[in-house]
């Protein structure tokens, strides 16, 4: 299937110049923000200063798009993980930055079981990760219910990857649909070590964090130090619920994690996660979905806390949304809410709906459950809404083209 897309150029709210700023170095490459939503996908092309954005979309209007990712190895191939409320899941692929799309010939799907057996069915592809820079055209995908898949032809055909999809231990740790998040248990945070394509991580919500050092032939849990809901046994991998795990590009031995039960840091070769979220303000807590790392400074990371008390509203704590940053690996956290609404604001940010670009200073972007896209051009000091009235935002990625 080939589609053409509508394009329009508009000035987004909040983009008008407010004050005269000191001259700053213009980045050589422009930022492309990829927004995946419950009802389609949008591409926002930034100008050289990231002040005005040209909106391209909707793509796949009416489709549930969980993730839209640009291949950094060629700078032009996009993959979109999509389904509708009623049709089965698929992957759309564009090799011209979204001008045209073709559907995957074989989307991620579990192995067929013999007649009479009870096989699993992919409900949706949730997460897309390009493989190592030395593996062009290779991608990983994580699904709901939890499954790990790989494509070696740029996303055209997908095969189950590794043993975990059918491994009895992993199947136990994955739990059932009843154990998962409201719209299904997820395999997410597929991470490739930039130094070694055979060194992989992934996380399951629920089902823990896992590592492979043999190219995915085997995986093992890496959950020591991670807490679980009170009353449950942390030795049971199934009870661990990592929401988002990120590896620091500037120090691939450091990972940060936003978990159902706190914020963590892991410094390899240690296998002991440290709950750095205990240093967050008590009235805010350290519960949330996304985790964002700095492209050049492994001591800097951002989170977006949500209310994880009582019945778990999963809204901005006290109706006052804010990003929090650490500049020292989690020893201290600083509130970053300048420009954000100051009261009666009840949205939150889902696990792949917050990201950073690689510019200097770093640009931060997050999409809300109420369809607003916010950005900061100065690492979180000041926030601006650059798009609103979108559907619920599931994924935000910042690419450079």
């Amino acid at each position, binding site marked *: 299937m080939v589609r053409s897309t509508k394009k329009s150029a508009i000035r987004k709210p909040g983009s008008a110049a407010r004050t005269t700023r000191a001259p700053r170095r213009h980045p050589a490459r422009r930022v492309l923000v990829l927004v995946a939503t419950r009802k389609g996908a949008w591409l926002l092309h930034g100008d050289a200063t990231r002040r005005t954005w040209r909106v391209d979309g909707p793509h796949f209007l009416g489709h549930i798009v969980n993730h839209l990712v640009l291949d950094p190895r060629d700078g032009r191939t996009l993959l979109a993980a999509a389904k*509708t*409320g*009623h049709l*089965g899941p698929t992957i759309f692929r564009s090799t011209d930055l979204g001008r045209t799309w073709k559907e995957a*010939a074989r989307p991620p799907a579990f192995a067929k079981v013999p007649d009479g057996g009870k*096989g699993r069915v*992919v409900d949706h592809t949730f997460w897309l990760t390009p493989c190592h820079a030395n593996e062009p055209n290779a991608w990983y995908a994580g699904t709901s219910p939890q499954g790990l898949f790989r494509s070696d032809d740029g996303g055209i055909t997908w095969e189950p990857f590794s043993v975990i999809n059918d491994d009895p231990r992993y199947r136990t740790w994955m739990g059932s649909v009843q154990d998962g998040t409201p719209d299904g248990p997820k395999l997410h945070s597929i991470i490739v070590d930039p130094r070694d394509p055979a060194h992989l991580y992934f996380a399951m919500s629920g089902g823990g964090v896992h590592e492979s050092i043999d190219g995915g032939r085997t995986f093992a849990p890496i959950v020591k130090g991670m807490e679980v809901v009170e009353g449950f046994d942390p030795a049971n991998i199934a009870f661990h619920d990592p929401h988002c795990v990120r590896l620091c590009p500037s120090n691939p031995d450091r990972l940060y994690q936003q978990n159902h039960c706190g914020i963590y840091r892991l410094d390899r070769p240690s296998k002991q996660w440290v709950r750095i979220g205990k240093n967050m303000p008590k009235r805010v807590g350290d519960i949330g979905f996304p985790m964002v790392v700095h492209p050049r400074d492994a001591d800097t990371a951002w989170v977006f806390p949500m209310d994880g008390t009582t019945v778990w509203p999963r809204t901005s704590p006290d109706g006052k949304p804010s990003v929090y940053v650490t500049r020292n690996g989690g020893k201290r956290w600083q509130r970053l809410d300048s420009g954000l609404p100051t009261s009666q604001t009840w949205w939150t940010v889902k696990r792949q709906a917050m990201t950073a670009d690689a510019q200097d200073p770093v640009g931060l972007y997050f999409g809300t459950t109420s369809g607003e896209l916010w950005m900061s051009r100065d690492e979180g000091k000041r926030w601006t809404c650059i798009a609103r009235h979108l559907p619920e935002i599931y994924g935000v990625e910042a690419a450079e083209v």
Partner: protein
Amino acid sequence: MKVLIPSPLLSYTKERKVEATGATITELLADLDRQYPGLRFRVIDEQDQMRPHMRFFVNGEQVFGMTHSLSPHDEVLIVQALSGG
């Protein structure tokens, strides 16, 4: 036989009424997928089961099995039972 296509699948067929062959629902979908690649997996899952909300009617009667027999003069309706918002 004539097959009536629901609007969510028009991006594959471009038209509401198409011609396809097959002695069973399974064979009919194989032929549709041959003509319109990708259509089958949107309707039938990897365990060869009809996806939730996808309904098949043959000559006005709903059928539930993939092995339901078809003849060349049958008329097949594929329907999406829309729900949710």
